[in-house]
């Protein structure tokens, strides 16, 4: 008996795939549209911003907007304030989160898991619920209208602790135990073993914290009323006066405000994206 060997048919044209691509592209475009609109508006005169139909590429780009924003309001100072707050808060968050996470992940103490759950549960509580009491408390401490107030509030984050703890849990306990036998203190283990190993988690947390703090609007709005303390996000509001708003300038300033966030994200996204992608693959 002879066996005839047939070639399995080639996969047909895959309409499902095409449809998926089309949908994905459409969604991406929708997401990008406001951003593009912001870019184009930042190069327009105020009166042209809302002209309809939208002129995506301005015929006479007004680059002057990017010069004017620095003189019309103290934008340089705002950028400095924002950068200062963001850097301090980010560094503090990285330190406190990874430190606390080390204890929750690698040390044994009574009620560890209960404490952790309670701490994590605070993520579910919207800030708006307790921001007023918090504000009153801070005012009692005399921290109203200081950067210190914001730094104190934002130096600790349950989310950061959660993220770092999950990462530390995946580092074998034996590593800490070997270090303990070698004679290292718990603090030393954290600093010399855990921190160097947790770069991807730290990068991810840096992205989150940096972006969040940089873009924070409500916090500075509540705590900072003096002009010289303001951050970009609330400083930009100075382009809005009672009767008019300089939309072209607002958009230009927003673009400027966006740049550091983009840089941080692009610099660190490798960890973050690859991390997500390969966990999916390798399980």
């Amino acid at each position, binding site marked *: 008996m002879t066996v005839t060997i047939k070639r399995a048919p080639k996969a047909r044209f895959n309409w499902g795939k095409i449809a998926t691509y089309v949908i994905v592209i459409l969604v991406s475009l929708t997401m990008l549209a406001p951003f593009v609109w912001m870019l184009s508006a930042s190069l327009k005169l105020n009166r042209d911003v809302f002209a309809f139909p939208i002129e995506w590429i301005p015929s006479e780009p007004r680059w002057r907007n990017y010069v004017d924003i620095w003189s019309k309001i103290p934008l340089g100072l705002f950028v400095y304030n924002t950068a200062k707050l963001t850097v301090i808060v980010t560094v503090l968050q990285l330190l406190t989160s990874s430190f606390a996470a080390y204890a929750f992940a690698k040390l044994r103490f009574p009620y560890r898991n209960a404490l952790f759950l309670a701490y994590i549960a605070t993520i579910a509580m919207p800030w708006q619920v307790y921001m007023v009491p918090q504000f009153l408390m801070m005012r009692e401490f005399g921290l109203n209208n200081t950067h210190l107030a914001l730094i104190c509030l934002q130096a600790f984050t349950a989310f950061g602790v959660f993220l770092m703890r999950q990462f530390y849990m995946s580092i074998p306990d034996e590593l800490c135990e070997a270090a303990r036998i070698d004679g290292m203190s718990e603090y030393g283990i954290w600093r010399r073993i855990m921190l160097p190993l947790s770069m991807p988690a730290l990068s991810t947390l840096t992205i989150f914290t940096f972006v969040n703090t940089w873009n924070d609007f409500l916090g500075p709005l509540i705590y900072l009323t003096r002009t010289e303390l303001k951050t970009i996000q609330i400083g930009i509001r100075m382009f809005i006066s009672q009767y008019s708003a300089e939309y072209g300038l607002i958009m230009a300033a927003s673009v400027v405000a966006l740049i550091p966030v983009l840089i941080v994200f692009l610099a660190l996204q490798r960890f973050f994206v690859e991390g997500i992608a390969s*966990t999916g693959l390798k399980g």
Partner: protein
Amino acid sequence: MKWWLNLYFAEGPGIAKDLPRATGLRLVWQTIAREWWNLIILNVVFITASLPIVTIPAAYAAMVRVTATMVEDEPCEPWRDFREAFITLLLPSLSLSLLCAAMVGLGAAATRAYAQAATESLAFAVPLAIAAAFLGLVTLFTTFAFTLLATQRPLLPHLLKAAAIAVLVRPLPVLAALGANAALWVFHIAAYPSTILLAVLVNFSFGTLLITFATLATAQASLAYARSRNEEERIKTIPPIQTGATASN
């Protein structure tokens, strides 16, 4: 995050025991790939240690010591090794640098004088050539002398003799290394200020690594030769020209 942990904890392919040591540019590349992080630390430490200006020779010598450890593929800790070398080499390197600076200065002055003279009369071309050659040789001599001081700490007469021998035996790799250094700095200046980070993070240590590569083996062989007393020993220590640690030919 698993990929990152896998990177760390997954079992590796193993390292063959009797792998022949790479030579030439491949060795440079391997060393850089292995020690890049230490090179960055080293660079920052070097800049800090050089701030008081008079400590530059010691800082350079200490950096040569650390890079020599890297070249020899020995475990190094830039911070600690640098500090130790820096302290022990503080005075010797300062004196050596004064000596070398005097010679280089002399060569430079002579070259400059003859260069000016040569524009007026071609007759000065010959002394100009000699002065320039002297300047070049003295520069090479300096690099060898520092490598010797940093890695071997020989007696002064041995050091001078060995450096002189080394210059004559294998000048080309060092020239190439110096050239690479020059190129690095030209690039830095041309693209300034976007390359400022490059200077802060790698320029010095990376450049020194290249110089160490080019000088180390020759310097050591020459020193052994200079130290040997009698003819018989000399023949045994004829510089092993084909040893690994040379940047290029």
